[in-house]
């Protein structure tokens, strides 16, 4: 027994001596990786492993109760050929994305431009237009429910009632429900876009605009021929940002109409949620998630392609 311990100690020392050059040589790596260990493990589990798992699950028929069976591309084939609801979800999300990208960028740029033009109260107006960003999805949904309530008690129906119009079933009419849901986020939640435009506009040197004004350009001409071209990288950034954000939309659809009526407000992420967590078709929901991911990836790649052409203020 004692001999064994002695022998172990000896061997241990030999190993330590052999390893010593390794320790000194890789001292930096050992220190760095020791500090990174816990974050990297967490990242490995909840990102890397999770991502591999969703890819794997997308090729199975798993419904949480059975063992997952590998079924090849069946889920993907179903997405593109047999599922009418998913088609609706992509179509709705596309409409939502196009209108939001246009709306948020127009309102964001216009208000940002006006705010930078104002001399007194710049910070006040910035805060007064930005704060609705602080409103959560759930609070926002509660507001939408009340504003667009289909009964005469709803705010909008009350207001148009004063003008002599009858009540409109905003949220229960499949033709207009999606647009009724869109109004609130479209006009209230452009604050981030606006802030980035303000940051971009203040970066443009005043000398450029002054030069244009000396040449007798009107405000509109200066805006169109000087400001917009110089702002191009920021515009691209904001367009890509709003595109990605609005493609992920599900809050109002889930919280206000739950995808209805007749799936007219179904969105892609809501479809992932409903397939996965309501119907427990985890395999199928995973394949929808992968298609969704590929679309977001394509949009992100677009940004890198555009990023090549940078504008310099020098």
């Amino acid at each position: 027994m004692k001999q064994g311990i002695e022998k172990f100690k000896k061997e241990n020392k030999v190993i330590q001596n052999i390893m010593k050059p390794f320790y000194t040589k890789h001292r930096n790596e050992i220190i760095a990786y020791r500090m990174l260990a816990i974050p990297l493990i967490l990242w490995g589990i909840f990102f890397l492993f999770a991502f591999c798992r969703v890819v794997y699950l997308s090729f199975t028929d798993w419904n949480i109760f059975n063992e997952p069976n590998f079924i090849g591309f069946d889920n993907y084939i179903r997405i593109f050929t047999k599922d009418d609801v998913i088609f609706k979800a992509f179509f709705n999300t596309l409409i939502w994305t196009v209108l939001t990208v246009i709306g948020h960028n127009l309102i964001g740029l216009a208000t940002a431009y006006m705010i930078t033009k104002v001399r007194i109260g710049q910070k006040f107006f910035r805060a007064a237009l930005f704060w609705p960003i602080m409103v959560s999805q759930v609070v926002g949904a509660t507001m939408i429910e009340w504003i667009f309530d289909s009964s005469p008690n709803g705010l909008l129906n009350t207001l148009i009632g004063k003008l002599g119009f009858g009540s409109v079933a905003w949220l229960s009419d499949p033709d207009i429900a999606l647009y009724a849901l869109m109004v609130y986020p479209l006009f209230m939640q452009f604050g981030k876009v606006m802030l980035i435009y303000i940051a971009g506009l203040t970066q443009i040197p005043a000398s450029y605009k002054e030069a244009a004004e000396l040449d007798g350009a009107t405000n509109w001409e200066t805006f169109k021929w000087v400001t917009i071209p110089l702002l191009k990288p920021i515009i691209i950034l904001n367009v890509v940002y709003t595109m990605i954000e609005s493609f992920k939309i599900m809050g109002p659809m889930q919280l206000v109409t739950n995808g209805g009526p007749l799936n007219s407000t179904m969105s892609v992420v809501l479809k992932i949620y409903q397939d996965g967590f309501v119907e427990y078709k985890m395999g199928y929901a995973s394949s929808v998630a992968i298609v969704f991911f590929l679309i977001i990836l394509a949009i992100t790649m677009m940004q890198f392609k555009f990023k090549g052409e940078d504008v310099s203020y020098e």
Partner: protein
Amino acid sequence: MNKKRKDKILKALVYLFLSVYALFQLVPFYLRLVFSLQPKDFVPVLGEVYWWPEGLHFENYVNAWKMSNLGTGYLNSFIYVTIFTAVSAFIAILVGYVIAKKKFKGRKLIFIVLLATFMVPSEVLLIPNYIIVRDLGWLNTLTALIVPGLVNVVGIFLAKQFLETLPDSLLEAAVIDGASEMGIFFKIVLPMSSPVIATYVILVYTQMWNDYLWPLIVANRQEVFTVQLSLMTFQTNFQNGYDLILESAALILTLAPMVLIFLLFQKKFVEGISMTGLK
């Protein structure tokens, strides 16, 4: 002369437009505030908009607080969001510091791989992360709300950008003084990072407070409801006029802390969003 006058009119129009837009955003919330203060037996007349409450009935807030389980929601949100923000800020600074200041093999690779996280929306990982959390036995615990998102890549990115500007001489001096690696981190790097920590904390705190989807998936029991889930369940028992009043009070209570934080730290917000947006 003519141009000057035109400019003046234009400026007046700009002020007018901005003011009207600001009011337009405020009015719906103001009307809910008015509702939240109405008396219990208040019955709204059809087609009437109420700009002023009939008395200030703050007891509605007490009732809403009790009825909607909002107290539990507040407490849970406060605990989990605070822990999440603190730990994830710590991790962000630690990783940002190692990537910015340590020279070791694999540094570039780790940074690029972490950046790849940006490309995968969290919605894609809902299903696998739910399963991982379930298999770990964390469903309906605050742990499930905290752990999965702790490595925040935006935070790491912010920290790295910031710490690259930290002078090396400062760190070298500490090494000569015989400080240990973690000693340097705690005594020099962490205190020096306070501006970036402040920005990060404000952005993440409000974002987590407002989040509902992940809590909705992993927290099904009332004891672990967050404040957003409490408000969500409030929506279901809509029956008479008083429900709208109570719902308005609950809505204001959910929203108020965020608006307060925004008003207090507006500068940090603007800074944070411009910083993360422009990079």
